[in-house]
């Protein structure tokens, strides 16, 4: 871990380090080089020993010319070694083996190249950095390949318009791609996911709020169960609905049953994600609401949920993306049909992933092409959902996007203006009478009471907020109190008060009444 190598003396060490930094950071390196230079200048022995510790800071990350050259050099020679080995040994076949060989020889050569000018630790660091870069690269290459391959193979079926408008009722396995389509599967997916959302969103969000708002042993237990259920095998969800709905209740396979199965699978996912988002709502906001006297349900409805809105939407959309793509629950519960069926309660229904699954089980190339086309449509659907989730969510709770921030700023400017208009006659007194609440108690009294003198104060209209809460002077004295006699900071608290009043609706007067 330590750079400091006490056994090595300055004379051996210093030149090595200076040469190492020649390329780009010469100006940075030169002040650090002073101890070594001092030693070279022949200062007395004592300080020289102390200065023998090379005080060169470790480079962390960053790009150097020699580093880049080493990477490219090692890559080129790794490639060459692989070509050579492949020609000679030929134990592998296929592109995959070639890449593995090339990569391994690249790593070895890179380690050797770096070792020419760095110590062992730095070599390990460089090599591991490259390994981690390639792990990340491999992951995203896999993602790109999976998505790209599906889109590429889907290109045969996708250009035909009938693919989106017809069902497979009239099209046999041998028919060309100009016959038949996946309209029935698309409709089925929409109906099933709508049923699942109708169950999951209210129940899941309520349960997430429950986990956050009513702590206790039972809610901890529910949370544990839900967390364990997030990885519930989806086929087990299908089996459960099959057992309950079809075997016990004697219903037939239908879109409704499939919707139930998808809900069972989605529910833990949505609850868990929403729970995480709700936990991030700042405690200060809920405490402020509580302090204003709002009951818990109003706090949740007007403070907690709006604050976490974008995160909750993200949770629901990501759950939807998972639910749309699940095949196995639908496989057990929806039955199979080639016809368009818009009635979820009656008759079998099919969803996109199930259609893909059934298409590619066929050996016919046209059916497989249809399968890839349906998979590409499914993938596009998931991508769109995902992008929507990222656009509206992705921010922490309470963070605003530009438009929301502008709107909030406009509202608070308006409130600030109204507030200053309201208090115009007393402004100079606010400024001068800096101390004491009694100055404040009188000021607003006069300001609202005299109302008329202020030229442009529409006194009765904006007055409701602070003034006539209950006509009680004590409460008036409390409202401006945080401003502490200074008109400038009076702006910020005012809009806050206003928005809370607006948001909490009828509760506002109770809140002001209870504020003290």
């Amino acid at each position, binding site marked *: 871990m330590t750079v400091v190598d006490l056994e090595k003396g300055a004379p051996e060490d210093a030149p090595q380090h200076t040469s190492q930094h020649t390329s780009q950071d010469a100006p940075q390196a030169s002040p650090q080089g002073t101890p070594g230079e001092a030693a070279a200048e022949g200062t007395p022995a004592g300080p020289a020993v102390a200065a023998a510790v090379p005080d060169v800071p470790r480079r962390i990350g960053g790009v150097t010319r020699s580093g880049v050259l080493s990477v490219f050099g090692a890559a080129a020679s790794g490639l060459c070694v692989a070509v050579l080995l492949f020609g000679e040994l030929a134990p592998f076949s296929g592109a*995959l083996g070639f890449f593995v060989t090339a990569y391994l020889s690249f790593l070895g050569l890179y380690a050797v190249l770096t070792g020419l000018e760095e110590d062992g630790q730095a070599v*390990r660091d460089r090599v591991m950095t490259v390994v981690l870069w390639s792990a990340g690269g491999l992951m995203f290459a896999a993602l790109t390949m999976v998505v790209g391959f599906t889109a590429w193979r889907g290109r045969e079926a996708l250009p035909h318009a009938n693919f989106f408008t017809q069902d497979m009722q009239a099209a046999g396995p041998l028919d060309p791609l100009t016959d038949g389509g996946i309209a029935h599967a698309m409709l089925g997916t929409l109906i099933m996911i709508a049923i699942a959302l109708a169950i999951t969103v209210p129940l899941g969000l309520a349960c997430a709020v429950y986990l956050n708002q009513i702590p206790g042993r039972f809610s901890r237990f529910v949370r544990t169960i839900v967390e364990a259920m997030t990885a519930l095998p989806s086929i087990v969800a299908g089996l459960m609905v099959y057992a309950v709905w079809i075997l016990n209740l004697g219903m037939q396979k239908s879109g409704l049953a499939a919707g139930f199965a998808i809900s069972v699978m989605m529910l833990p996912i949505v609850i868990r994600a929403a729970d995480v988002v709700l936990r991030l709502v700042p405690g200060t906001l809920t405490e402020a609401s509580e302090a204003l006297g709002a009951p818990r349900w109003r706090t949740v409805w007007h403070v907690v949920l709006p604050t976490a809105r974008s995160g909750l939407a993200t949770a629901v959309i990501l759950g939807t993306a998972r639910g749309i793509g699940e095949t196995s629950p639908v496989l057990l519960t929806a039955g199979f049909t080639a016809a368009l069926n818009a009635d979820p309660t009656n008759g079998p229904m099919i969803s996109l992933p199930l259609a893909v699954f059934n298409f*590619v089980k066929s050996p016919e190339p046209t059916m497989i092409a249809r399968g890839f086309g349906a998979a590409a449509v499914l993938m596009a659907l998931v991508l769109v959902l995902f992008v929507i989730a990222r656009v509206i969510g992705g921010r922490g709770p309470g963070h605003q996007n530009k438009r929301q921030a502008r709107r909030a700023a406009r509202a608070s400017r308006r409130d600030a203006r109204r507030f200053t208009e309201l208090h115009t006659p007393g402004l100079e007194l606010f400024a001068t009478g800096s101390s004491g609440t009694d100055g404040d108690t009188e000021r607003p009294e006069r300001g609202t009471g005299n109302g008329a003198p202020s030229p442009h104060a529409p006194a009765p209209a904006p007055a409701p907020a602070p003034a006539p809460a209950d006509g009680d002077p004590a409460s008036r004295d409390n409202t401006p109190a945080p401003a502490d006699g200074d008109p400038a900071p009076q702006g910020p608290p005012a809009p806050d008060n206003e928005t809370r009043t607006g948001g909490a609706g009828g509760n506002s007067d109770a809140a002001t009444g209870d504020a003290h």
Partner: protein
Amino acid sequence: MVSALKDSAGAESERPVPRRPSPARGLGDRVFRVQLTASGVIVLAIMAAVGLFLLLRAAQALRTRGVWGFLTTAEWQPDVHRFGIAAVLTGTLLIAAVAVTISVPLALGTALFISDIAPRPLRRTLVSMVDLMAAVPSVVYGLWGLFFLQQHVIGVSRWLSDWFGWIPFLHVDGTQPGEPLASQSVYTASTFVAGIVVALMVAPIQCSVMREVFAQAPAGEREGAYALGATRWGMIRAVVLPYGMGGIIGGTMLGLGRALGETIAVYLIISPVFTIQPHILQTGSNSVSSLIALHYGDASTFGMSALMAAGLALFLLTLAVNFTASSIVARSRSGAQSEA
């Protein structure tokens, strides 16, 4: 509700009594509380119903066969009362083992890459891409594995079995080392191919759990390591990895839970066999979930009961794995909060 509040407020305004911060006050809050608790109970009931109904339905098959017989029989012929999950369970575990072996280094590397190595502006994009990868439908992975990956993996499978065939589980029947003309079909539809595909499906989940825990490694200790002269990899080894050990183990197990239950991708790739098949490179494998997907259509009432029993076994297995995983992750998280 509001008027009641107003009244109480009016009464209180005379004598300022601080409101008691009890979790429920007033009618509205009581209703609210009851509703929320009800939703919690409903969710719990649904989750309990999964286990309960599977058990109920599986009882007939389990009574006939006995639990031990059910666990140790490899065949699947429920109509003559000879069935068990020894073969499919072995297959499930082997596929999951291959998947985890491949996915953990990949997920760990990607998580470290995102949390420590990647350029800062790139990190958010990378995180969303990992999340997207977790949202890709399993049937799409299955298609990719079946139509693209399989033909490219055959070379690797052959190389592995040629050179390491002396390791029992890498052996492939019907091939001789160094015999290049052996049929390629013995390497297709194997546990190995299915495992690779499942690895890609579980790696994003593992990665996001690990990354979350790594991101919580205290900045003070990171900087301390740098101040002592550590390289970046030195810092990762000395601070981030020990700190994130809980996350690594927990994330690995969460991925394992997903890998055990994966259905469609495995079903598309493997060719089902009902003997215990320990050779992972050889064609033929099976898993509990693909057994259910394969046989649910043609099952008699008793056969369905047997499938329910298999589903119950899978359910209990994943539940055990997930409980362990989430408790490990939770412990590592709570430690993070106390130290931060």
